[in-house]
């Protein structure tokens, strides 16, 4: 098991190299000049040239890439052009906020989706099922950031219950977490429902019923435990997209996270920040996916045995 985890951690390295190459390559097409971003429009041609020379901006792509990669392994992601702070520090300044929002959103999603999905499966083809699938159908079509705006309208502007923006304390986390969480609700409810349905049709449940076990034991001990794998996979996918993809929600609520900062940096043409942030996010996304695979082993002894064999 430990060997498997170590092996998986090692596979993250080529992923990081590939992601950083793609990002580096794309960023090379940016028409803006980093020297101008750093020194401002008033800089003379000589100053710009000096900056380019001292920062190695005149070197060929592959040389800059190699230098950059050597830096990554030392924890150096370069310096922000716009405010001259190390990108590494900027990232870890914003990342805890993003992580906090992601975790809170997952909690919201799980609290809403699991009961709804299980209920819909148990009451298959009744009005309960119809209500649940209608809810998730509507949720799937709703733009997340619009839901955020609606929540601000209702709870902050009209009712004055919760703050509309910022990240001061627990109350300001509620609306962003509901926004991200309900956005993901649709997918998780659907998956919970369908994997529960698969399990509910199995023979061993009939056996459990014929032994006279209560319906509740059957659903939670026998059925749900075996329906967990797709559910955990989906939660993992959501967690990984939330880490990098909560850009819009962060913007709507002025949440000081990684995504909102990246968009700001893009608008300031601060591409050193963008490159560094994307690479760091890719690393964390890979780690989350690894965590999901490890969780499988705890949920299902068969998978654990498989890991140990390989």
């Amino acid at each position: 098991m430990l060997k498997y985890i170590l092996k998986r951690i090692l596979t993250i390295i080529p992923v990081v190299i590939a992601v950083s190459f793609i990002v580096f390559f794309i960023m090379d097409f940016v028409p803006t000049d980093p020297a101008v971003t750093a020194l401002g429009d008033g800089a003379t041609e000589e100053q710009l040239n000096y900056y380019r020379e001292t920062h190695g901006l005149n070197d060929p792509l592959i040389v800059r890439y190699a230098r950059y990669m050597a830096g990554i392994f030392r924890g150096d992601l370069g310096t922000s052009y716009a405010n001259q702070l190390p990108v590494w520090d900027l990232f870890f300044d914003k990342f805890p906020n993003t992580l906090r929002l992601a975790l809170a959103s997952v909690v919201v999603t799980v609290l809403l989706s699991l009961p709804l999905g299980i209920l819909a499966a148990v009451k298959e083809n009744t009005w309960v099922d119809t209500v649940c699938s209608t809810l998730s159908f509507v949720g799937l079509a709703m733009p997340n950031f619009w839901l955020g705006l609606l929540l601000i309208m209702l709870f902050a502007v009209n009712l004055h219950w919760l703050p509309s923006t910022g990240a001061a304390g627990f109350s300001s986390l509620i609306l962003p977490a509901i926004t991200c969480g309900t956005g993901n609700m649709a997918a998780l409810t659907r998956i919970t429902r369908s994997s529960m349905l698969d399990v509910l049709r199995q023979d061993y449940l009939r056996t459990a019923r014929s032994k006279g076990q209560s319906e509740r034991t059957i659903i939670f001990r026998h059925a749900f435990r075996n329906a967990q794998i797709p559910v955990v996979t989906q939660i993992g996918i959501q967690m990984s997209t939330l880490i990098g993809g909560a850009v819009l929600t962060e913007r709507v609520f002025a949440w000081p996270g990684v995504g909102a900062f990246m968009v700001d940096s893009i608008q300031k043409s601060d591409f050193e920040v963008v490159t560094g942030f994307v690479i760091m996010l890719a690393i964390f996304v890979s780690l989350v996916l690894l965590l999901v695979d490890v969780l499988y082993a705890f949920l299902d002894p068969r998978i654990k045995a498989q890991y140990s064999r390989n």
Partner: protein
Amino acid sequence: MKKNQDAAISVKENRALEVWRQFRRNKGAMIGLALLIVLVLVAVFADVIWDYENDIIQMQIGNRLAPPSWEHPFGTDNYGRDMLARIGYGTRYSLLIGFVSVLIGTVIGVPIGAISGYVGGKVDNVIMRIVDTFTIIPSLLMTIILVSVLGTNLFNLMIALSISTIPVMTRITRASVMVVRNNDYIESARAIGAPTGLILLKHVLPNCFSPILVQATLRVGSSIISAAGLSYIGLGVPLPTPEWGALLSASKSFIIKAQHMCLFPGLAIMITVMVINLVGDGLRGALDPKLKR
């Protein structure tokens, strides 16, 4: 030979008819299709229904932020322009972006996935590692980065969205090609020496058509949402173009005074995506009876 071709055509016709019959039975899908036709008509004839200069762009400062009324059912915006006209005209952009970006993504993603799934081995490995890499970067971020590199306009937005569609289409094509390629008729086509390209085009891909079409349809909805999101943060279609995301972006400053500005563009996005997803779900049910619940 001629007879065989005729037989093949009639089989195809029967298949299409059968799919249509199945599709027609699904009430939700039929409602979705009817509404989608209406939306497409509004998008195509937007120029006829509204005058771009007078109804969409021309400011009427005297009539700022008017709430919904008989004259302006969706109210007016911060420049006094009729929201109904602006949202109606915006149908054009959202549908165009959604369909074109998915079309481009499909045209590029399907051949890559087909080769990956059919050839297998090292080729498959290399292609899938590249696809994995793109999947690791969250797709919205990827789109944002691409737009910021290419520059913000309608065309670049479509290109950026199509690039994040490619990995999705590649994966789904690869998966279904891998199932189809093991069939006996593919084996026999190979045995009589048919070239790989021909086998892929004539025998493999037609049998993978259903999952690809369903996935593409559902992808249109998510592309429309992503496009609106990008316009919302100012990286999509710029104002004064009445793109729905841009309308929402403008509404944020008036969230206290004029909530109708925020309500209706969002509803337009949601209903459009729901309509497209209804059609997608209907197609899924009609094309693959096994998937029906």
